[in-house]
């Protein structure tokens, strides 16, 4: 039996593959990887040059950030995917959004006992701004939305529900389906809903209405006011305007629950 040299076999196989490719006119993946690494170097230099001059703008201008993100989207790159990406390292875009992510998580955590993990984008925006302090960079709602989209990767149920022209930001993994969402949207105008309002506007039967409202109560997203004139009112703390609410500590909150 002839012992075949392993080296020779591998080389022959590779030569065959190369020949096949050259025939078809396609490029080998290895060659492409080399090509890509060269292109990356040029690109990196160009980006470094830009960054050395304009890094401050990114932190200062919300408008610049929006246009920058839109451009990246058209190219097909995600500048926030990793802290190790060029964009993060050279332009500092990453740190801006990742820090914002931390602040968003902390605000949501602090208010969860009160609103069950649901908060309007406006309130979140205001509280994050307050937390950042007077001398920190301004943050736009667009910035918040992008930061929240990134937080979804960590599976803690971060999501956004459109209501009345803005969004409710969800920070707990409660299962909210279309029915829940639609009731939230209905409640947005006054901050509360009643069973009859739901039945009239949405044309639901009593059972479906009560089921959805019970779900919201269980998740802590709605509070029941049984003493309202007329029929009981289901209030959504997430929608409370600053005018008719005051901050409650977790202890007070648990005392209030029957």
């Amino acid at each position, binding site marked *: 039996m002839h012992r075949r040299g392993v080296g020779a076999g591998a080389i022959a196989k*590779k030569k065959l*593959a190369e020949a096949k*490719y050259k025939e078809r006119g396609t490029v*080998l*993946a290895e060659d*492409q*990887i080399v090509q*890509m*690494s060269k*292109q*990356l170097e*040029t*690109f*990196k230099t*160009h980006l470094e040059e*830009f960054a050395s001059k*304009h890094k401050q703008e990114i932190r200062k201008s*919300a408008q*610049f950030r*929006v*246009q*920058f993100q839109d*451009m990246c989207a058209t*190219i*097909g*790159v*995600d500048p*926030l*995917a*990793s*802290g*190790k*990406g*060029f964009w993060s*390292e050279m332009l500092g875009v990453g*740190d801006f959004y*990742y820090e914002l992510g*931390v602040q968003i*998580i902390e605000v949501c955590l602090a208010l969860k006992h009160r609103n069950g993990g649901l908060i309007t*984008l*406006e309130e979140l*925006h*205001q509280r994050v701004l307050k937390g950042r302090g007077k001398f920190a960079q301004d943050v736009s*709602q*667009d910035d918040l939305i992008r930061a929240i989209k990134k937080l*979804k990767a*960590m*599976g*803690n*149920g971060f999501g956004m529900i459109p209501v*009345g*022209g*803005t969004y409710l930001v969800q920070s707990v*993994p409660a299962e909210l389906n279309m029915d829940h969402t639609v009731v939230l949207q209905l409640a947005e105008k006054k901050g509360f809903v009643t069973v009859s309002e739901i039945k009239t506007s949405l044309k639901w039967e009593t059972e479906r209405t009560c089921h959805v409202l019970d779900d919201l*109560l269980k998740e802590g997203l709605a509070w029941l006011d049984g003493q309202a004139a007329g029929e009981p009112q289901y209030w959504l703390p997430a929608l409370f*305007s*600053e005018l008719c609410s005051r901050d409650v500590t977790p202890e007070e909150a*648990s005392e209030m*629950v*029957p």
Partner: protein
Amino acid sequence: MDRFVWSSGLLEINETLVIQQRGVRLYDGEEKGKMDVGILLLSTHRLLWRDHKNHDCCIAMPLSQIVLFEEQAGGIGKSAKIVVHLHPAPSNKEPGPYQTSKYSYIKLSFKEHGQIEFSRRLSEEMTQRRWEHVPVSQPINTSTTSQAGRTRAVGIVGIERKLEEKRKEMDKNISELFNTEPFISQAKEMVELSRSIASKIKDKQGDITEDETIRFKSYLLSMGIANPVTRETHGSGTHYHMQLAKQLGEILLAPLEEQGGMMALTEVYCLVNRARGMELLSPEDLVNACKMFEALKLPLRLRIFDSGVMVIQLQSHSEEEMIASALDNVSEKGSLTSEEFAKLLGLSVLLSKERLLLAEKMGHLCRDDSVEGLRFYPNLF
């Protein structure tokens, strides 16, 4: 507000409507002025506003009048606003609702929200400046453009000039990076190239070594291109993620012990990034690093509960131990809610709920689900 002219509200030929928003009030600088609430419309060429009651009352302003705009967040009893800084009105301007104004800016007050989208579209139109190259059938009043430069009406010249320069700088910087054709097309080329390489890797064409694959993945990471190639050995990780995983393995041991062996991934994210201060981790970095714990034989594990909650768990804290102790606690107190359990153990409510659910899944606890909350009892069945 003296930059507006009376208008029929009809769009010209080649002028397109971009977005409209109802419930908007216009302010002349800081003053509420005589206009009521109405519908604000943005076209490719102008900003228009129509009174919501009296549809004949409609005013318009060319977009070229706009120097720049800023968002103003809402507050107690205040709606969110967009502040629009303007060039002075041209001398040949047609009549409008205001003869003169002491302000060089107006405010758009969004009483029924919609400022996010409006602001975004306005920003797009201001970048594209379509009114400059799309001629419309009727002549629109164009203000003296920025090229006119230094000669201007006296008064607010200093501020306006600064704003104008700021805007020009920004535009120039943005064009430097973005409209520089070679830059954008180069980036697009690289995305295409990466897709081609990825599909070849998938189809196992050619002889790509493990090393080359890892190198390729790190290129993708640098550019922020989504990685379509996942291999079992490394997951979607790269050397960077492996290093991170090892670091995390050290940093997280103490906090995990303190918190009963388990922490939500969002808590870890905050903890690690707060400690770093700069060169922060992205959420995806964290997840990708945690996925490598097992492969690297570190004493931590990433775990995903049925609810979708992701946690990091000390491997030493076995499941049976946790469930057994949960059962003990519940039996001792008769019954527990997640809040009570959380207080008892010093855990977060989220994680204590997950533990109780796990114990229930294993058949040791059963639930009493009412509007008063979710309460767990030892399972006597």
